[in-house]
């Protein structure tokens, strides 16, 4: 059982992670590199006439940096796939049917719980953005992901209104408490770049998670039927 779970997750996570990495390198990385020019002071947002904050073309491949990004994206999504396949097996054990088609829905739910709902109060941060200390943000992030995952599970598998009401409350609570935010907004990076970065990061996350759900379900039901 354990071997079959891990095997399915490795295939699914690596495939989704590789696609996520390529999408990130093409759509997200140029925005990040551009922001780093502001973070290091090579470009200045406003206040000086000498350095216009123009948009330089950010391209090119840095083999070590981009190679590490591909490796770590594959690792992160493999971690997600292990949890996804475990959750699918647990649901199947309770009578749920797992297929590649409804794996897409699992992927959507995963994106909501791990990417979109935390981002609702703590948007993906562009390097150089002002932010609160990392420890409280991590605590809030993990708490939100845990509570949101539980809430979506209750919505999907709950059978009564009282369960669904509890789920909705759980979805709201982290945002009513609020994420840790900096006391002052002193980030040197233009808001235009930060906005583009946040929407690109979420878009790539959505694509990657839908594929992760699809692949996880596909490989799991394949492994499970042999």
């Amino acid at each position, binding site marked *: *059982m*354990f071997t079959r*779970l*891990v095997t399915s*997750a490795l295939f699914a996570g690596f495939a989704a992670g590789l696609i996520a*990495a390529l999408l*990130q390198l093409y759509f*997200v*990385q140029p925005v*990040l590199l551009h922001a780093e020019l502001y973070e290091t002071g090579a470009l200045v947002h406003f206040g000086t006439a000498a350095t216009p904050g123009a948009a330089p073309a950010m391209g090119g491949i840095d083999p070590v*940096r981009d190679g*590490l*990004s591909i490796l*770590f*994206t594959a*690792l*992160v999504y*493999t*971690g*997600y*796939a*292990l*949890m*996804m*396949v*475990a*959750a699918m*097996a*647990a649901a199947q*054990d309770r009578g749920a049917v797992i297929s590649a088609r409804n794996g897409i829905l699992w992927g959507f739910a995963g994106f909501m719980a791990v*990417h979109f709902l*935390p*981002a609702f109060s*703590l*948007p*993906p*941060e*562009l*390097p150089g953005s002002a*932010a609160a200390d*990392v420890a409280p*943000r*991590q605590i809030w*992030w993990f708490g939100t992901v845990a509570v949101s995952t539980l809430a979506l599970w209750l919505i999907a598998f709950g059978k009564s209104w009282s369960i669904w009401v509890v789920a909705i409350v759980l979805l709201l609570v982290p945002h009513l408490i609020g994420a840790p935010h900096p006391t002052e907004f002193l980030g040197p990076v233009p808001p235009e770049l930060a906005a583009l*970065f946040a929407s690109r*990061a*979420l878009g*790539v*996350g959505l694509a990657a998670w839908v594929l992760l759900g699809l692949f996880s379900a596909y490989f799991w039901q394949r492994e499970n039927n042999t």
Partner: protein
Amino acid sequence: MTTKTQDTTRVGSKMLAIVATAFLGLGVMMIAGHVQATTLHDAAHDVRHATGFPCH
């Protein structure tokens, strides 16, 4: 009686496998995405930002 014991054991080992897989995944995700050790942070920097994790 014997059958029941076997069933319980099988269900138990199944749940154990599921829980172990989930924790393995959590561990991989924590190390790749959240541990603040400098070397790990620098190597995974771009990914952490791009996946919306809290980073430095």
